[in-house]
């Protein structure tokens, strides 16, 4: 899939913008704070139903305005589809539509316009908290399977209900008899999520080994949890049940559900070593890029179409030979949108479209 055009109205610093994109590499260059990332953000928002920079939609509206709109035209096998997002901050309503047909649920949109985002924050997947690694898996799986997105939403709500019950029990407001039903719900959806994630990690590893490994870099991922290591449905449920039997007192004291996919993590290895503790900053960056590339290739396999690659703030941090290696891997995709401060950062790339961004105006070069 590739994007043919992007139209924005009152989105971030753009009052009105219309650009035509090309298959291949599209480069947006310009100084910091001119609005390059806003273009990438608008595409991500349409694809994922939310921004990667803010959870507050009202922030995306241009200052002094009350509503924004995004319209994308995407082409897949010669078939054009229109994706639109309209948000009105005065009524806090967002409408998302494909070919003018409004989606009733966000899960009906997520995954229809597959994207892979590379941003400087990707490195936090290595350096950061477990929540950032879970988020990576959840965002990817939500695009793969509509059902994952729904199940995850349900699961997180069930955990919130259960935690509030635990708090109520601690304060003596709530009877313990309330717990078993919620244990069962949390277990059922929790196990579904774990199984999907474990399968996805296996598939990512396959991509990392087969398509992305080189003599210099070998990256491997492992799903990790404090509570279970046998990823079989029956064994997992057994783990949940025995946990709920033995740890409930502790859970009541802390008013928190202490088992489940919301507490799991990923271990990431660079050339056999734990990347978080033993890889240099540069190696961590390469590791995160390779994992995202694996995500992109896996998405192509699952969806049967190329995801649009969004490469935010591509900097010169990678040294020359690594840049060559990574650059070659990016050419496996059909369309790539890159933002960068200087054109020179992209030596060795051959852009099909070039755009100069300055103060909310985009000039096609």
């Amino acid at each position, binding site marked *: 899939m590739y994007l043919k055009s992007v139209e924005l109205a009152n989105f971030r610093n753009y009052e009105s913008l219309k650009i035509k994109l090309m298959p291949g590499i599209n480069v947006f260059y310009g100084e910091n704070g001119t609005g390059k990332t806003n273009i990438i953000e608008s595409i991500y928002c349409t694809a994922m139903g939310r921004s990667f920079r803010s959870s507050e939609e009202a922030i995306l509206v241009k200052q002094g305005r009350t509503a924004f709109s995004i319209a994308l035209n995407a082409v897949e096998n010669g078939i054009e589809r229109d994706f639109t997002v309209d948000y009105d901050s*005065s*009524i806090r309503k967002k409408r998302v539509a494909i070919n003018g047909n409004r989606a009733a*649920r966000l*899960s*009906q949109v997520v995954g229809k316009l597959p994207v892979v985002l590379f941003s400087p924050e990707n490195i936090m997947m290595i350096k950061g908290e477990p929540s950032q690694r879970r988020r990576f898996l959840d965002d990817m799986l939500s695009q793969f399977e*509509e*059902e994952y997105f*729904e199940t995850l939403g*349900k699961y997180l*709500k*069930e955990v*919130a*209900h*259960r935690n*509030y*019950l635990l708090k*109520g029990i601690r304060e003596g407001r*709530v*009877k313990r008899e*309330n717990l*078993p*039903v*919620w244990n*069962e*719900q949390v277990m059922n959806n929790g196990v579904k999520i774990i199984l999907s994630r474990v399968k996805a990690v296996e598939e990512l590893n396959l991509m990392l080994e087969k398509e992305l490994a080189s003599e210099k870099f070998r990256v491997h991922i492992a799903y990790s949890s404090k509570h279970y290591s046998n990823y079989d449905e029956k064994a997992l449920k057994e783990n949940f049940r025995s946990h709920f039997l033995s740890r409930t007192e502790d859970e009541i004291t802390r008013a928190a559900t202490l088992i489940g996919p919301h507490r799991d993590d990923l271990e990431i290895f660079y050339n056999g070593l734990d990347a978080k503790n033993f890889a240099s900053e540069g190696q961590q960056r390469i590791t995160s890029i390779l994992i995202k590339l694996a995500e992109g290739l896996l998405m192509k396999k699952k969806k049967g179409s190329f995801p649009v690659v969004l490469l935010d703030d591509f900097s010169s941090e990678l040294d020359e030979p690594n840049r060559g290696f990574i650059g070659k891997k990016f050419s496996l995709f059909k369309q790539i949108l890159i933002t960068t401060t200087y054109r020179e950062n992209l030596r060795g790339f051959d852009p099909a479209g070039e755009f100069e961004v300055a103060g909310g105006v985009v000039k096609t070069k």
Partner: protein
Amino acid sequence: MYNYPQKLQKLINEISKLPGIGPKMAERVSIHILKKDVEYIDNFKEILEEIKTLGFCTICFNVSEGPVCDICADDGRDKSIICVVESSEDVITIERTGKFRGYYHILQGLVNPLNNVLPENLRIAELIKRIGKDPVKELILALNHTVEGDATSMFISAMLHDDDNNVITTRLAKGLPMGSDIRYADEITLGQAILERKQV
């Protein structure tokens, strides 16, 4: 800064407390009422006054004029089957289908711990009691397919199970809407419809 006269502000504030009505809509509704003549407002007042006499059926907890609602008072319905719903609106919706001839039980909500709604705050105990008395063979749980609807269904079936009776519980099937084109059905609904398919 100028604002509406206080009396109007009070009305807007009260209306905005109604479910599904935000501050903008409350303003519109209030101004609309303001434009109407005295007769309209008197009539409105009277209607509000009248509903004070309404209450809930002591058997099924549907809205009712007397202690027993019209449905529970109807002897011609099928006593072996009770349809369990969240609220009185659902009764009207199911009645409109014309496909159900049993009795109802209105839970007056769904289990929702985050909003401090626990099973004991709903009419579940009354439901269990009814089952002990009436010749009930089946309970249809016509509850939403949401986290709260799922939990409520589980609570009810668990409590029935504890009571050791022969009542079967069923839930409404998830599936395709009538007249829909399967090509346009969302994946989850279509997937469910495949799982819950029926022999023809």
